[in-house]
């Protein structure tokens, strides 16, 4: 479970987020929907602990994320907006590096690499250097890297950016499989259809504050709009 509690962050004169609060539950996919610059990335960065909130708190399974070695970090898998890989390492080595840094023993790292390679259909490029990967292969490797320590919670920042239709569909399937395993998934997007199709719960964010927090159906009903797009507008 991921909880954001009154997260506020200011960069210079810009109030990036203001009292952002929401909860992403286990066994659900939660979508963070908003236009560019609405505060999605800042919220997520505070949740996965690379920037500190001015006030408020981010909790993973009830544990505060702050602190370099917080237990919360071990319970979280992260796919940041810029999910770059090490080009001179193979996909397997990229995943294994993060596994080792998460503190897994070598035997478990090996096992997880094979499991993830099979689960994410990566066998064809698992032992190739990441330098020439397609966007789809890159996302899969970055996702495997985020999942190597079998985290209960997963945060993805605009994961579908730059993916073609086929790659988006396979990413969707992967996320649904993870949900079926009872994990908590939080992802951000500025594409309405994507959120509507995939999410159990939608948090609409604009100007750094939470505008709505409901199921997609309820959102449509409350606003009386036929589509999510209209509801969003």
């Amino acid at each position, binding site marked *: 479970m991921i909880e954001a509690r009154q997260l506020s962050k200011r960069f210079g004169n810009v109030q990036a987020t203001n009292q952002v609060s929401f909860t992403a539950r286990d066994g659900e996919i939660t979508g963070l929907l908003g236009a560019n610059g609405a505060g999605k990335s800042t919220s997520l*960065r505070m949740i*996965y*602990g*690379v*920037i*500190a909130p001015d006030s408020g708190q981010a909790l993973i399974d009830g544990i505060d994320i702050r602190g*370099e*070695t*917080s*237990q919360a*970090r*071990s319970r*979280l898998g*992260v*796919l*940041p*907006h*810029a*999910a*770059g*890989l*090490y*080009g*001179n*390492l193979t996909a397997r*080595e990229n995943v294994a*590096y*993060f596994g*080792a*840094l*998460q*503190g897994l023993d070598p035997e478990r790292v090996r096992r997880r690499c094979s499991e993830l390679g099979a689960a994410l259909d990566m066998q064809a490029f698992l032992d190739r*250097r990441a330098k020439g990967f397609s966007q789809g292969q890159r996302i899969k490797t*970055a996702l495997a*890297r*985020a999942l190597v320590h079998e985290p209960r919670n997963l945060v993805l920042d605009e994961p579908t950016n730059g993916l073609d239709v086929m790659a988006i569909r396979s990413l969707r399937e992967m996320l649904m499989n993870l949900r079926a395993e009872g994990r908590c998934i939080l992802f951000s997007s500025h594409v309405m259809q994507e959120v509507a199709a995939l999410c159990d719960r939608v948090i609409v964010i604009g100007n750094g504050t939470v505008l709505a927090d409901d199921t997609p159906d309820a959102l449509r009903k409350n606003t009386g709009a036929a589509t999510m797009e209209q509801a969003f507008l």
Partner: protein
Amino acid sequence: MRALLTVFRKEVLENLRDRRTLFSALLFGPLFGPLLFGAMVTRMLDQNSFESDQALELTMAGSERAPGLMQFLKSQGVKLTFTDWTESQAREAVKSGKAPVVLIVPGDYARRFESAMPAPLLLVADSSDSQNRKHTDRARALLAGYGSGIAQLRLQVRGVDPWLALPVAVNDVDVATPTGRAVAILGLMTYFLLFAMLMGGLYLAIDSSAGERERGSLEALLSLPVPRGALVAGKLLATCAYMGISLAVTLTAFVIVFGWVPLDRLGMSANLGPLTALTLFAICLPFVPLGAALMTFVASFTRSYREAQTYLTIVLLVPTLPIAFATIYSLKTKSSLMFLPSLSQHLLMTSVLRAEPVRFADVCVSAGASLGLALLFGALTARHWRRESMLG
């Protein structure tokens, strides 16, 4: 500690697969210095021996007016070429390099010579060319010799003791030792050593922060439950490893080059054998973490690979400044200078190369100062990594 080793192993492996890093760490940096050094020293030695053995070439215009002078020059082994150039033609010839030195005997030479008046001679040369200047000096010395010979004859003919014209006899005592002359060359060598060593870690230092950021792998890395200090330490250690290898390769290359070059003729202890090389390695080693920490520290403030390269090129110059200073002011090894990294290594290495005694305490102070500063920069780097601005 485990995380530190994980980071270290990954950085070493990743860079081992990077052709650019390998090229600068193992090939360009380490071999460039020794080869250039060897070529320069060999050329200098060649030039010296070549000049004293070779006959002076002199172009002479109007030689028919001075048969005595011509005979004298010939007897001194000068290779004479005869022309009928005017003064302006001679100027052109020297300017264009067609003739190194031209001696013109003007029209009134013979008349004035016979009436024992100072007879004019024109020596056309280019003093801005150091090669040419050596020729000119030799020509001038020969002409002066001819002049004083004639003067003595004239005095004797008039019944005057020639010694009267020599009130003082000056004897040169040159105290310039060959070692002194070698100082600049030694400065060059220690500079090449430090430079090659820094080059060895340059790309790792850039890669460790600016590279991670540009690639987009930094944010995921920073979300892990790993102390930032361990990340920085692992990266620094990998940079040090590459720098150490560069240093070792450079020293080996110097040992090989010194085997070919007859350094004793430059007054340097030519016994740069494995033992001296090991001593130099030990003296340089404390500078390795300092260089690594300094480069990583500077690189962690830059946003892109390109920006990092620009700033680190300046950092590469920093260790050269004290060495240039030491060379210009001919600094000698002094305990008070051992607190300055790069300068202290330069002075100690120079002493070792000259086979001068080196105090162990000086070596310790030099190492301590370098390591202390390395720790400071390492800590500052780790502190910067804990900041949000690190994300860029």
